[in-house]
């Protein structure tokens, strides 16, 4: 058994109180949500916060609320609910698809969306679809909120723009515009309990059912220090009619946009090749989705 280092545990019942408690711990306190990252790191001796603060008792932190033009997701919502909720499966199925390949059923019953974002693993499953959907995060410190596009949130492996005493309080996702299709493809050695070798999330929006591509997002995961936009692929897609030839060119450009490392999961060259294949597949699936609506 791996023993956890000692800490004090707080469970405030309002966000204001949570901010206060966290501020008082200076930089010695950390939030614990599902604990599936932080407890593993603490057991491995990589982290030993003096205080852990749980948000679980605060009303609304685990809910999904529809608002005009989108939804607001609470940070403590468990990953399993991203798959189970009707609204998610019907309207935001890109996120449900990514959620369904995260860890195992047991992990998904504890792991939260907030934890998955703040942990900032380069291969985390939820940031790519969220970035493809243009999600924004709301951070709170001393009772004051600021909003950031998720695109600007990540800095590098395990590093984000969040300040040590700041709390992620909301994730905002807009409704998909009409004629939008998307897909998330994760390449793994096996079908459960596996982080991505490479993953790709794409979203395309046409100006009419048979029209040109108005907006395109191609997010690559596990091939750079954080999830990144395949900028040159996105550029070439926008303003064009979606064709197999265009998708092949975009996919080939995407593989030049990444800077993977070679590690136990796969070589850099292999990863680049897979970026091309997966991007092409995801784009075709996204288009098919628009056509079949």
């Amino acid at each position, binding site marked *: 058994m*791996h023993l956890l280092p000692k800490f004090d545990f707080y469970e405030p019942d309002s966000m204001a109180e949570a901010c206060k408690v966290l501020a008082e711990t200076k930089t010695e306190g950390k939030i614990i949500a599902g*604990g599936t990252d932080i407890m*593993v790191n603490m057991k491995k001796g990589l982290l030993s916060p003096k205080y852990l603060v749980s948000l679980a008792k605060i009303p609304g932190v685990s809910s999904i609320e529809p608002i005009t033009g989108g939804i607001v997701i609470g940070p403590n919502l468990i990953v399993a609910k991203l798959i189970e909720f009707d609204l998610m499966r019907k309207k935001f199925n890109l996120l449900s698809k990514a959620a369904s390949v995260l860890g195992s059923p047991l992990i998904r019953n*504890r792991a939260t969306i907030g934890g998955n974002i703040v942990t900032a693993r380069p291969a985390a499953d939820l940031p790519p679809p969220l970035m493809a959907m243009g999600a924004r995060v709301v951070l709170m410190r001393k009772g004051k909120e600021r909003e950031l596009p998720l695109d600007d949130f990540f800095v590098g492996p395990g590093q984000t723009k969040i300040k040590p005493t700041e709390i992620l309080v909301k994730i905002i996702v807009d409704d998909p515009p009409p004629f939008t299709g998307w897909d998330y493809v994760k390449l793994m050695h096996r079908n459960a309990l596996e982080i991505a070798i490479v993953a790709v999330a794409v979203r395309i929006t046409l100006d009419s059912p048979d029209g040109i591509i108005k907006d395109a997002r191609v997010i690559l995961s596990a091939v750079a220090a954080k999830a990144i936009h395949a900028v040159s692929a996105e550029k070439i897609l926008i303003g064009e009619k979606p064709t197999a030839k265009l998708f092949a060119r975009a996919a080939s450009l995407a593989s030049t946009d990444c800077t993977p490392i070679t590690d136990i999961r796969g070589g850099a060259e292999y990863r680049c090749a897979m970026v091309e294949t997966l991007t092409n597949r995801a784009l075709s699936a996204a288009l098919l989705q628009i056509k079949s609506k």
Partner: protein
Amino acid sequence: MKKIITLKVNNKEYEVAVAPNRTLTQVLREDLNLPGTKCGCDMGDCGACTVILDDRPVNSCLVLAVQAHNREITTIEGVADGPNLHPIQQAFVEHGAVQCGFCTPGMVLSAKSLLEKNMDPTEHEIREALSGNLCRCTGYQKIVEAVKSASQTMKK
């Protein structure tokens, strides 16, 4: 500083004083004397420590005991009805789905959660539901068959 918490395990309430850094696995095994919950990897990878927490199977090695305060927990000790095995346990015995037995409590609890939601799962659904539980002995086939057979018995 220790906290006094209430754990509702297998329909019985326990009041315990625990240090915040103790996991639910540790408290179940060491304080409540319920060693049916196993500790394998202690890192969320193997599922030997599976318990059902408020209707959802979870890795108890990644739950702090203080996080389980006032919540309903089912461990393998709460699955049989006195001397009568649960149909899932019975099917595991009959199908030879138990070899060393280390994964069995977790397998049975994951299967129980599945069958409570889905009375007639496909083989794929069974494999998916058990995908957080590793078995080093059986090769899974007999476990999947046992769960399938239990689902038929339980429907009757």
